[in-house]
Each structure stands twice: as structure tokens, then as C-alpha cells.
């Protein structure tokens, strides 16, 4: 680290870096937009993963409205697009650059500044999903190469594959929802898998067996009466928004959980082995097919898509030898739903993630679109790029 960089030289370098990248984005047809820095807090807090939620600057304005400083530019770009196309009926290819804000405990960590810049691109509503993914990834690659940061390792993941496996396994829909929800937290996910194998978790101790015995699985109305009788007898007064009906439904689900067959150990083992796959991209599909064994049939959709995507990436001039596939990669990122990727410099530690992106098909709907809209995008981290190639630009 240089002790105190010359601010004017830093500003010039940032301008040059931004200029190079933005010209490439615009020449590839990604129109530049200027999304708002101030964003409504609520939408962000709903959509972000745990990690970003606790690092977002939230505050009230003089009118009492809850706002936040954008922690990235993807959601602001979605909102800007929807302002213009409320029906989300027009495909769009947009690009941006500007500051983003994330709280970091160490205010002086040069690799994780609280205020940093991103240059990025988003593709909304493209019919050809793989085509859009390949285009976004290869455009980022061109930007990085033009800046002198080419040839990095590209880590690939696909959240659709593990999701696909969970969806294909026969189990109560409720378990499936819980597994999908827990997937973003590796520890919780492992615990839950184990729990579903060894038998449902022990009952909450406040649930009396004699009440559960009196519930009637296919008769919520009569079950609710019996829960009400129990509450009256115990002198429990309902408070809060959650009703006796909701409680009854939840108790009926507990009864059902206990009756449901356990998840076979080999199925849990299969999920574990799939998530643990971390191989050169060229081996990814073979390895997944081997691990999946006879279950690969159900996953032919996502596996075939992954293969086509690799072929198209190669056809677009990207060497597969640079790419590594990790099945669990991207699980804890905010709002991604499918293909994810990251450009990494080996041996650079935290400095190493120069850019990343992926598919997020649910976000536009969450931001107000009338239906899910296919979307894929990526962003480059200006400060990390500057740290790597800044000398040439200063």
C-alpha cells in the first residue's frame, strides 16, 4: 500500500477506468443509465440476503420515510427500468457506473471500503436465457481484458441445479420449502438435512401430546375448535396478529411431519455430495452425472443447459480452462436464482474478486413487475480493479 495516494491522480485513474469499461458496454448495446443513490429501505431489506442486509446504511429522512444508500446498483436499475416500463414488456440492456455503500466493521480496510464504485450491466427480458448469460459474462471479460486484468479464473455456479434436485425428490412440500430456504446458509442446511433423515425435530415442548392426539388431519375446522377448547382450559389469551386458525394449521403440519416417511439417508448423502462438487468446468457435467447416478434423468434439463452454456462460452472465445465449477457457489448471495459467476485473481485474497454476476429471475417481480422477468447482470468492482491495474492508468 502506498501511504497517501494523490487524490487527483486517483480521480483521473478512476475516470479512465470507468471510461474504458463504459465505452465497451455501450458499444455492445448496453445503454447507460443513472439509477438513484437513495432507495426505499423496505424493498432492499426484503430482497437482500442476510449478509448485505446487516451492511446496508438505513436512515429516516426529515419526513420520516425509511431510506437506504444503495448497497449495489442492480435493484436501483430494476426500479428505474420499471418506472419506464411498468408492464416489463420490453427487453432492455442497460449499463451504469457509480458509487455504492456497504458498512464494514473496519473503516480503514483498503480492500473493503464502505463507499466504493461499481460498473455494471443488466439484461432484462431476453428470450434466449443462455445467450444473455454468455453475452453478459463475455462482455465483462472483454472489459477486464481491455483494462489489463484479463485471464483471471472464472468461478461458475448454478443455483438451479441443487434446487432442481431438491424439487425432484419425493417429500412433503413443506420440507422442500424449508430446504430451499435453508440452502443459502450452509450450516442450517446441513442440520436440516440431518434432521429430516433422523426423523422430524423433537416437538416444541409447549405442544402437549394430548392436544395433538385430538387433532383431525383432514378437518381443520374441527381441529381448530379443539385447539380453542385447549386454550380456554389452560387460560391462554390469544394476542397478536397470528390467529388460532394459523396455530392449528401449524400443529396439523407437525402431526403430518411425524407421520411422513423420513428422508432416506442416501438421498441426503446425494444432496451433500452434489453441493460439495468443486472441479474444473470441463469436468463439471460428467462429475454431476456420476454423483447423481440414476437420478440424473430428472436433472437432464438443468444439466443439459449447463453443457450448452459451456459450449456457447467457448464459442464466444472464452477458454474453459480458465473456469472452475463449484456447485455450492453463490448460495449465500442476494437474489440470484440460477447461473452465477465471479472473476477471481488467484493468490490475491480479498482483492481477488474483480467482478461477479448471475441470473436473478425473481427480482423484477419483487420490485413491482406484474410477473417474473428473466434477468441477468454483472458488476465490476472499480477500487479492486484500480488496485490491480491502477499504475497503468495514473
Amino acid at each position, binding site marked *: 500500500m502506498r501511504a497517501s495516494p494523490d487524490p487527483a491522480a486517483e480521480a483521473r485513474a478512476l475516470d479512465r477506468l470507468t471510461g474504458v469499461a463504459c465505452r465497451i458496454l455501450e458499444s455492445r448495446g448496453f445503454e447507460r443509465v443513472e439509477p438513484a443513490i437513495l432507495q426505499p429501505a423496505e424493498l432492499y*431489506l*426484503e430482497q437482500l440476503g*442476510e449478509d448485505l*442486509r*446487516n451492511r446496508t446504511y438505513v436512515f429516516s429522512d426529515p419526513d420520516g420515510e425509511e431510506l437506504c444508500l444503495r448497497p449495489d446498483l442492480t435493484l436501483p436499475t430494476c426500479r428505474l427500468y420499471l418506472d419506464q416500463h411498468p408492464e416489463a414488456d420490453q427487453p432492455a440492456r442497460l449499463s451504469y457506473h457509480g458509487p455504492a455503500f456497504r458498512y464494514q*466493521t473496519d473503516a480503514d480496510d483498503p480492500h473493503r471500503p464502505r463507499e466504493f464504485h461499481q460498473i455494471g450491466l443488466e439484461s432484462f427480458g431476453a428470450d434466449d436465457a443462455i445467450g444473455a448469460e454468455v453475452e453478459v459474462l463475455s462482455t465483462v471479460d472483454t472489459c477486464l481484458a481491455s483494462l489489463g486484468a484479463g485471464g483471471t479464473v472464472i468461478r461458475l455456479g448454478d443455483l438451479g441445479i441443487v434446487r432442481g434436485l431438491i424439487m425432484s425428490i419425493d417429500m412433503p412440500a413443506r420440507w422442500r*420449502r*424449508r430446504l430451499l*430456504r*435453508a440452502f443459502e*446458509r450452509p*450450516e*442450517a442446511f446441513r442440520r436440516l438435512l440431518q434432521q429430516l433423515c433422523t426423523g422430524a*425435530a423433537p416437538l*416444541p*415442548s*409447549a*405442544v*402437549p401430546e394430548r*392436544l395433538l392426539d385430538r387433532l383431525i388431519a383432514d378437518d381443520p375446522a374441527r381441529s381448530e375448535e379443539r*385447539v380453542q377448547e385447549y*386454550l380456554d382450559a389452560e387460560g*391462554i*389469551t*390469544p*394476542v*397478536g*396478529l*397470528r390467529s*388460532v386458525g*394459523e*396455530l392449528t394449521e*401449524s*400443529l396439523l403440519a*407437525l402431526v403430518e411431519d411425524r407421520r411422513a416417511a423420513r428422508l432416506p439417508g442416501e438421498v441426503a448423502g446425494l444432496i451433500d455430495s452434489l453441493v460439495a462438487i468443486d472441479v474444473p468446468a470441463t469436468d463439471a457435467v460428467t462429475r454431476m452425472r456420476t454423483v447423481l447416478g440414476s437420478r440424473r434423468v430428472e436433472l437432464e434439463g438443468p444439466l443439459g443447459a449447463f453443457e450448452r452454456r459451456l459450449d456457447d462460452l467457448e464459442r464466444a472465445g472464452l477458454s474453459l480452462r480458465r473456469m472452475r465449477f463449484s456447485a455450492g457457489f453463490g448460495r449465500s448471495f442476494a437474489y440470484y436464482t440460477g447461473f452465477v459467476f465471479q472473476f477471481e485473481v488467484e493468490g490475491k485474497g480479498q482483492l481477488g474478486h474483480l467482478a461477479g454476476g448471475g441470473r436473478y429471475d425473481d427480482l423484477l417481480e419483487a420490485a413491482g413487475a406484474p410477473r417474473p422477468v428473466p434477468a441477468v447482470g454483472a458488476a465490476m468492482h472499480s477500487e479492486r480493479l484500480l488496485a490491480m491495474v491502477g499504475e497503468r492508468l495514473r
Partner: protein
Amino acid sequence: MSVLTLAVPSKGRLMEETLARFAAAGLEIVRRGTERGYQGHMPGLGDVSVAFLSASEIASFLKSGRVHLGVTGEDLVREAVAPGDGRIEEVVRFGFGRADVVVAVPALWLDVDRMADLEQIAPVFRRVHGRHLLVATKYRQLTRRFFADHSVSSYRIVESLGATEGAPQAGHAEVVVDITSTGETLRANHLKVLSDGIILRSEAALFASSLSPWTGAAEHLKAEIAHRLGA
């Protein structure tokens, strides 16, 4: 300016017990001027200036280093800084001012006994009611950390600065994170404490700030105070 500044609670039982504990250790605190003054000193020890402050101010003065030492509740200190933060160090625990910071839910929720149960019903609640579970508390940071440790993420905090235990009944929130000594108030408000919902067993303690200007003389006074208080 004094060599060392010590902040003590300015009112209530916490103040009385603090002054009594210091006096019993031969560290009598004498107020300057009137009985109601907010400044004091410690004639038995030396150049110590004593500030009478509210318990929550003491926590934030310790965090910023405006006082060297302070007596306050552990709950307020843990709310002000994360564990391992290093800005505030515990010197000696006092055993009084005991209270637990707990997670409480309506007694109606027979299906929720542990944080893991809360994690399960939270997304269902959100589907049914179109909004997150609301947690009323004045302990924003303690709540965030504890809920994150238990993988509960589908919730929002609503700030509550008084009568928190009444929030569910008033319909302002479903869950409460609050301080309790016997649980009586919570029960009276039709709430129950989760079996693994004790966030912190808090008591009053003497804390030191690492950001204060620590001269050799200040260190010496601190060591003497700690020694006499039985640290």
C-alpha cells in the same frame, strides 16, 4: 482535568447499590455542591472525577472514550458494542442489577418453543400476512446478532422505547425482545420466553474504555479501584 474519570448511574437502585458498593470498598463517592449535583469526587483515592450519568449514556461514553471507567448494565454495553470489539472491557462484575434480555412470543404460540421454531413459522407468517414478523425491542443490535446466530432472518425490528411487553397486545409487533427479572410482566401480557431465548444474563459491572487517554497515573488508579472492589 482529572487523571481519571469514572461514570456512575445518576438515579434509582442502580445508583444506590453502586455508591454502597464503592463505599464498602473504601472508595466513598462524594457529590460536589448540592445533593443533586451531577459531579463528584473520590476523597479516599486521589484525582478521580466522578460523573453521574444515565445508564445508557454511560455505555455510549465508554464506547467513545469520554470516560475511563463506568458502572452500568451489561445489557447496555453489549448493545453498544459487539463481543470482541475491544473498545469496552469488563473490570469487575457486581452481582446486582440482575436482569435477563429474552426473546418472548405470545403464549398462544404452542408450536414455538425454540428459536428454531420461530425460524420455521416466520416465512409462513409472511405468506399469510404479507409482511414480516415484527420484533419490538430497544435492543436492536443484540436482537440482530442473536437472531442471525439462530438463522432467523424473516423478521423486522420495530423500535420500542417503553412498555415493550405490551406491543403484541396492541398489535404493534408479534415478538418482543426485552429485559425481565422474574418473567412476571411478560406472563401478565400473555407472553412466554423461548426455552433457548435468553440472549444475555445481565448484571451491573464496572467497565473500562480502551479509547480514553490512559496515562500511567490513570492506569494506576484503575488498578487500585479494581483491587479494592475485589477484581
